[in-house]
């Protein structure tokens, strides 16, 4: 580089050298707008199919430029986490910073290389744009700024949950997962974009975004407070919930073009963490909040102390009604106690939930079997309303030949027996029929007992469905079962239980061709040539449960409307009989969180019925 000294006076002729520019070409560009660069931040496009209406873009927009617009033609699907909201962009505010692109969980909103938009003074409406796939002027410009792995603002990967080694857990019923530490929980909670899809998906509409936010802020009591607004079974749900919310979570979306690996927030584990780290006394105090001190003078009876019944009881008690719960078994909790093994849900946690519920004034009469100890009529006369929430405690049978043998048992019956002490002697080998979570529960429980008593696991699970997406049980259940030495045979249908001399020796299974017929009805087709034999001392049927409705009495059964073997109820849970409501598994199928939601629904309806 040539130095120029300060004292340099310059020359009058030097500038004239630039007359050479008469001979040089101008550098002016053409009048047409140039194509912008490959990562240009131009006008937005939005892929309507990818977009889920989570409104993260709206929240990150620093200029308040994004309005969420309801599009009726798009179908909402809460369980899949799809809303009919789509962003519309106000270019009178936008600053093209592309933060909306970088935060979009599904990479739906992106930017193009289009950058020219002009309008007449009275046409400012054209500044409010509803971006589609083709861009602001329908010109289909190439994509500009899109999300890359570098620019993605979201933390896609879940904090790993520690759990016991298979060897350590296989011979006992201790809880398998470790739970989060505070640090992990805060980190996990920090991933939440607060979209609320989980809240919509949750049957009980738990305020998940709110309690996740509270956990993130370290305010666990606040988090518990949020939970108790909608769910008195937070300990239970923190462990064994079917977490529909996590399936709907906007962070769980994977797309082959955009985000390759993305895991939903561990909402269930966060709930568990918050509940475990708040003292019982505090929780009780929180549960009292919102309880009225005015006695309504009405009384409600709840039959069945399961999640649905107790939730309804909890709500009604808080509203000032007198609530009596009738439970046939010695402890409350229903299926959560007698259907879920301890390694998934330790009993003390369940006890705690129930303690909190009773602390608001719910009275539970144990060991009272309605129909035998007390009649339905009597309950009706003593109370203004009755809730029937008896769950599904009868196991279904496959009705294959040999299934009437006494060594062929139902999973629910077994599960009920196992926590009641070590009286139960496990068979040396067992085959479980079924591919759901109950099948896994019984298989794993059985494996634990076998290990404890015989030091060897020999459990085979035979499921109709193929492993993979359509498999009924949760992935983690399957993988943990496999770790524990359980054999899972998928796509196998039971042929017959082989009985020799009145003793069960094993089960024959055949390969499954298809499960549903072309109308989508359950109608499995088997390939009988592919026959296998599994020797077993015990065959466990875990293919579904049904309700035991004998307690209702003949008159009531006739009076009620039925729908495919279940009591017919309306949206609010009330049956065709005025004073009777029904809730929980027996009307909605087995699921804790659904039962809780049902409980709320019924309680609300009863409350408005009683205070009418």
């Amino acid at each position, binding site marked *: 580089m040539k130095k120029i000294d300060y004292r340099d006076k310059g020359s009058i002729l030097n*500038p*004239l050298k*630039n*007359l050479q*520019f*008469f001979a*040089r070409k*101008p*550098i*002016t560009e053409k009048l047409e707008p140039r194509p912008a660069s490959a990562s240009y931040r131009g006008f937005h496009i939005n892929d309507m199919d990818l977009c889920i209406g989570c409104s993260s873009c709206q929240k990150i927009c620093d200029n308040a430029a994004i309005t969420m617009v309801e599009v009726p033609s798009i179908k909402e699907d809460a369980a899949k986490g799809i809303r009919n909201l789509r962003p519309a962009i106000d270019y009178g505010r936008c600053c093209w910073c592309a933060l909306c692109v970088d935060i979009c969980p599904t990479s739906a909103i992106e930017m193009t290389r289009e950058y020219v938009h002009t309008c007449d003074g009275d046409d400012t409406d054209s500044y409010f744009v509803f971006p589609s796939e083709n861009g602001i002027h329908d010109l289909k410009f190439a994509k500009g700024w899109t999300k890359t792995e570098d620019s993605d603002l979201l933390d896609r990967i879940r904090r790993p949950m520690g759990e016991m080694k298979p060897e350590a857990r296989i011979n006992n019923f201790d809880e398998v997962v470790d739970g989060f530490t505070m640090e992990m929980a805060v980190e996990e909670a920090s991933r939440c974009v607060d979209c609320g899809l989980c809240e919509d998906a949750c049957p009980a509409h738990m305020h998940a975004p709110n309690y996740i936010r509270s956990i993130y802020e370290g305010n666990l009591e606040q988090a518990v407070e949020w939970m108790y607004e909608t769910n008195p079974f937070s300990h239970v749900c923190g462990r064994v919930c079917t977490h529909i919310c996590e399936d709907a979570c906007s962070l769980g979306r994977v797309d082959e073009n955009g985000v390759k690996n993305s895991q939903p927030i561990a909402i269930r584990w966060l709930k568990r963490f918050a509940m475990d780290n708040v003292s019982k006394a505090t929780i009780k105090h929180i549960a009292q909040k919102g309880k009225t001190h005015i006695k309504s003078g009405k009384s409600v009876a709840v039959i069945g102390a399961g999640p649905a019944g107790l939730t309804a009881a909890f709500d009604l008690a808080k509203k000032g009604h007198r609530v009596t719960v009738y439970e046939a078994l010695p402890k409350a909790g229903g299926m959560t106690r007698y259907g879920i093994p301890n390694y998934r849900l330790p009993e003390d946690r369940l006890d705690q939930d129930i303690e909190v519920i009773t602390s608001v004034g719910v009275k539970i009469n144990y060991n009272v079997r309605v129909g035998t100890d007390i009649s339905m009529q009597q309950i009706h006369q003593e109370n203004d309303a009755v809730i029937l929430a008896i769950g599904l405690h009868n196991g279904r049978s496959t009705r294959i030949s040999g299934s009437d043998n006494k060594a062929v048992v139902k999973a629910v019956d077994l599960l009920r027996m196992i926590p009641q002490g070590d009286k139960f002697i496990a068979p040396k080998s067992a085959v479980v029929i079924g591919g759901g979570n109950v099948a896994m529960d019984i298989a794993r429980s059985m494996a634990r007992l076998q290990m404890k008593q015989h030091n060897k696991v020999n459990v085979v699970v035979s499921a109709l469905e193929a492993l993979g997406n359509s498999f009924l049980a949760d992935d983690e259940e399957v993988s943990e079962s496999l770790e524990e030495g359980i054999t899972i045979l998928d796509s196998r249908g039971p042929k017959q239980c082989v009985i020799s001399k009145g003793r069960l020796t094993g089960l024959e299974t055949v390969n499954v061709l298809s499960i549903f017929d072309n109308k989508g009805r359950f109608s499995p087709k088997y390939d009988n040539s592919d026959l296998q034999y599994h020797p077993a001392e015990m065959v466990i049927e875990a293919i579904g449960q049904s309700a035991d409705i004998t307690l209702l009495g003949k008159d009531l059964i006739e009076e009620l409307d039925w729908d495919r073997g279940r009591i017919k109820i309306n949206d609010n849970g009330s049956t065709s009989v005025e004073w009777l409501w029904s809730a929980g598994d027996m009307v909605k199928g087995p699921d804790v969180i659904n039962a809780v939601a049902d409980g709320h629904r019924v309680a609300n309806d009863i409350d408005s019925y009683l205070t009418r």
Partner: protein
Amino acid sequence: MSFVEIISELVLMPLIAFVVGLMMVLMMRKISARLQRRIGPPFFQPIYDIVKLYGKDTQVSHGLIHDIGIVMAVGGYIGAEILLPVPGMEGIADKGGIITLSYFLMIPSLGMALGVGQCANPNGSIGISRALTAMLAYDIPFIIVVFGAAWHYESTSLIGMIEYQQANAWGIIEMPFLAIAGLFALQGMLGKQPFEIYIAPAEIATGPMVEMSGKYMGGLFVMQTFQLYTAGVLYASLFLGGGESWLDLLPKAFLVVAIPMSIAFLFPRYKTEDLIRILWKWPVMLALIGLAFIL
């Protein structure tokens, strides 16, 4: 020469001057564009500008004197045009001569001074005082050059001078020093850098033009076309032998105007006192040397 001929020449000469002047404005803008590495305005741009300015819907006048000032500014040049002989047309050149022409050339500045004074904008006042200072500065060498030329050609009539040059040799060859001094004066007269002190947007926000608008601004644009034309043709007549035909005269005139324009875009402007010092030093010295040669 009949009366009708005179009248038609009096009308035609400013008209031609205007058209040629427009071309010169275009040339100026194209030159600047080229040096600045760009394309520049379309061909008819100067005429669009002027028509647009005259066609403004609202016009702001700052009083009668303001109007008169602009009329004087344009009128001064129109007067100059008819004193400037061109091929085929002499107008009243033989009656006026170069002395009258020099006086006419001062009228526009004075007219502008009048008009701008009425605007009462301090920027305008500073601008016009600068313009008058500049006039003072370039008029000294200009008058010496005119005097020298008249002395050399032994005539104060431009027609006579042109005839002399066509008969003998071009003034630029016979009196090169005066011709160079004349170029300096020309640069000053056109108000181009480095002698552009009275427009100076960054300093006094375009000086005299600050309050001019609409047709008044249009007047100044018209004045500029005349100014360029006058400067080009006058210089060509004094030193480049005028022209026997338009084809002869116009290239010379354009060339003359192109020189200061090319320079203008490569230099900044002087300060006022520097301008006076430079213009009273070099061109005057050159002119005096030139004068010494011919005397």
